């Protein structure tokens, strides 16, 4: 992984930088000892590590602003970090950066059920946002798999999704306002507990900007009333193409399930061995979940069953109880853990048009043979967001490189069929160098200009999202 050469002038001033940071923050909030900064050397993309110059854990927006103002003045790059669960290396430090973690800022500032929003500090974890409102019958919709650990700060930075996006959307569709601290240390209030923007939609471009435009310290999030209930149905098919056609027919029939999950045979077998969910040994498995009252659920599942039967399923199992629902989901939810038992794996995140599913799965199978590495596919089928898991052996020399080359080919295929490189994990460092497969230079230039407007000195998370040779003139000029 190529990263910019650390700025020797910054490295040489470490003592002064740390001393000035310590003067700004509470005792213990600045971490600079070599053995201690190592705790921040990577996020969930563990293949790449680099300890930061120092890490800071501010306790308030004012402290965040003070840190950024100082780093701006001294020309020190800043890498923001939520909980460090990024699979794309979004929070990977550079040796010359101050890593700014928001983990200590995790308070609920306001809950308002009549107006259906919650305002939180962004160090709060995703699941604990729902935890704060569920007693009143509400929930926060985006539900990334890492929701137990991941912070709202990272969710906003990466525009995180989850399994239930088909109905409820991703972070950007549920984010109403932010408190943003710019690299200059200016605090901006953008949006609020109302449903549209006053001017141009700054909130829309801040969400998903991977911590490159500012540090979001507070977020106003839409909360929704929980449905009366939810229940899944499981279907097995002997052909991926047939399963794909079934998904399309369900959608065309006017049913909008809250989730449609797809697993292929390697994934089904691994999950079954791990979780004993009672999955059939078939080529393709669908889990479709609908919401409503018991009678409404029966009605919708009846419609879905009728469609599925036209595609000759090998297995059709409708949940009749909470216990059966949990069993149907158990295997799917264990997918990543199950794979981790078998081998090291790399999880991809490309999105494709649903119509391209059979072609893409066939090509992935062919490439799997070419590269000599196994792949298991688990997939949010309703929205086309694929998660191919490439299995490799980290202890075998060259295997990681083969795996990365294979992954890059899969992502290029996603783009080729009309999709994109990343549906919910973000670009980070992982997919940075593939950006020119998705966009022309002119398309990227428009995005770089947005960063110019927010962060003219290119100090915030500067080595991410874009190929570094594309950003080099800007980083070096600033």
């Amino acid at each position, binding site marked *: 992984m190529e990263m910019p050469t650390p700025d020797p002038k910054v490295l040489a001033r470490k003592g002064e930088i740390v001393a000035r940071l310590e003067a700004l923050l509470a005792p213990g909030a600045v971490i600079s000892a070599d053995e201690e900064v190592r705790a921040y050397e990577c996020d969930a993309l563990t293949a790449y590590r680099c300890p930061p110059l120092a890490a800071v854990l501010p306790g308030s927006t004012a402290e965040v602003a003070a840190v950024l103002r100082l780093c701006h003045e001294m020309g020190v790059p800043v890498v923001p970090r939520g909980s460090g669960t990024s699979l794309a290396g979004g929070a990977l430090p550079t040796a010359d950066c101050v890593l700014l973690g928001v983990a200590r800022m995790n308070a609920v500032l306001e809950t308002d059920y*009549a*107006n259906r929003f919650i305002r939180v500090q962004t160090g709060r974890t995703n699941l604990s946002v729902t935890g704060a409102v569920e007693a009143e*019958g509400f929930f926060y919709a985006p539900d990334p798999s890492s929701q137990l650990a991941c912070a709202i700060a990272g969710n906003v930075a990466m*525009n995180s999704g989850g399994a239930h996006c088909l109905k409820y959307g*991703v972070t*950007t569709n549920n984010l109403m306002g932010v408190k943003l601290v*710019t690299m200059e240390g200016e605090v901006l209030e*953008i949006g*609020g*507990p*109302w*449903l*549209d923007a*006053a*001017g*141009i*939609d*700054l909130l*829309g*471009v801040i*969400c998903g*900007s991977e911590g490159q435009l500012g540090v979001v310290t507070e977020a106003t999030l839409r909360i929704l*009333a*929980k449905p*009366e209930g939810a229940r899944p149905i499981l279907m097995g098919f002997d052909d991926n193409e047939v399963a794909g056609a079934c998904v*399309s027919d369900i*959608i*065309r029939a*006017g*049913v909008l399930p809250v989730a449609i999950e797809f697993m292929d045979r390697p994934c089904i077998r691994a999950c079954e061995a791990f979780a004993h969910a009672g999955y059939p040994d078939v080529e393709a498995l669908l889990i479709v979940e609908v919401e*409503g*009252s018991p009678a409404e659920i029966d*009605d919708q599942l009846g419609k879905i069953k009728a469609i599925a039967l036209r595609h000759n399923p090998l297995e059709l199992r409708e949940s009749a109880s909470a216990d059966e629902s949990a069993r149907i989901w158990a295997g799917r939810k264990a997918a990543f853990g199950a794979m981790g038992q078998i081998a090291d794996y790399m999880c991809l995140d490309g*999105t494709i*048009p*649903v*119509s391209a599913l059979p072609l893409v799965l066939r090509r992935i199978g062919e490439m799997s043979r070419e590269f000599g590495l196994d792949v298991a596919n688990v997939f*949010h089928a309703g*929205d*086309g*967001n694929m998660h191919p898991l490439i299995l490799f052996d980290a202890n075998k020399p060259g295997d990681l490189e083969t795996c990365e080359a294979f992954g890059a080919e899969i992502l290029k295929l996603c783009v080729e069929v009309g*999709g*994109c490189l*990343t*549906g919910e*994990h*973000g*670009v980070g460092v992982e997919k940075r160098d593939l950006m020119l497969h*998705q*966009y*022309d230079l002119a*398309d*990227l230039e*428009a*995005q770089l*200009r*947005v960063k110019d*407007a927010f962060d003219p000195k290119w100090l915030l998370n500067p080595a991410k*999202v*874009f190929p570094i040779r594309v950003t080099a003139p800007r980083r070096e000029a600033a």
Partner: protein
Amino acid sequence: MLEASYSGAEAALAERVRDAHDAGETVEITGGGTRRALGRPVQAARMLSTEALSGVSLYEPGALTLVAGAGTPLSEIEAALGAEGQRLPFEPMDHRALLGSSGEPTIGAVAAMNNSGPRRIQAGAARDAMLGVRFVDGRGQVIRNGGRVMKNVTGYDLVKLMAGSWGTLGVITEIAFKVLPAPEAGATVALEGLADEAAVAALAAALGSPWDVTGAAHVGGRTLIRIEGFAAQTAHRGPALATALAPFGAAEIVEGEESAALWRGVRDVSAFHNREGAVWRVSIKPSEGPRIVAALKAGGDFEPVYDWGGGLIWLLTPETGDAGDAAIRAETRARGGHATLARASAATRAAVEVFEPEAPGVAALSARIRAEFDPKGVLNPGRMRS
């Protein structure tokens, strides 16, 4: 998207913007011309029509995706979707009757103004349904962002930035939308005679219920709550809502075309059609809605229509003096939210800020972004800011 029938028209449009940029001459962008009286009046040297960028270039009902040129008439898109039992999720408003304009509304204007109707509260805004755009920036450069898939975090989301920028950052040439199935049935639970405060409380109760309300309005003393879905769903949810709202009064359930007509009225603010006066659009925290109206009424003549559970208020007020500008903006400054002058003469729209003035830091940032996308300020100059 590149093989669209209007690709040539896009190249020609880019050439014209490049020419205007080089000449330093300003351009007013037009589509169907039904919404030219929105925003501040534009005084431009040249006109630029998106008319030739017309046609649906991709529609995959099984993937819930439609891609169209910016000049495509909205009616054409709705007809194509209707034939497959689908629709645009965000229920865009038709401005013709309110503004007294004529012509064919185009999808480009819907996107450029982030035009969202009553279903905004449940299905999201136009910007939420926009998956990708192509646009021509103020230098005449064609730029692509997003795509045609529902989940996409590849790089910055310029789609959102373009939605609601009123043509001041670029000329949108093509948009990809997420579409949704049109429901089998729709019904409205209606309560009569509630005061504004009680009405918004009833709407909050409905929106806080598990029944997936898709419309929540209060117009002319009637409080309206919409549910949509399969017939079995509306048959369950209508009576359930009526029971839950019993503390607010007896409810009537309106179904079929009569229900649909009620929501066309809310969407297009039919209460103010053919009536004199300025119309404002206020976006605010819903519970503040009745309070802002009460405060305004204490000092002047204001008539409200509430949508979005009270979070969107249309206000009719005499177009005299500042047409209510100072009074309304004093309230939004105190309570949060923002107000837009949605209908007034060109003279009034030139004299008062049509869009809510922004805090200095946000205004400066927005101005820097405009300068990056349109350095010479040739596109729709003054539409949003003087």
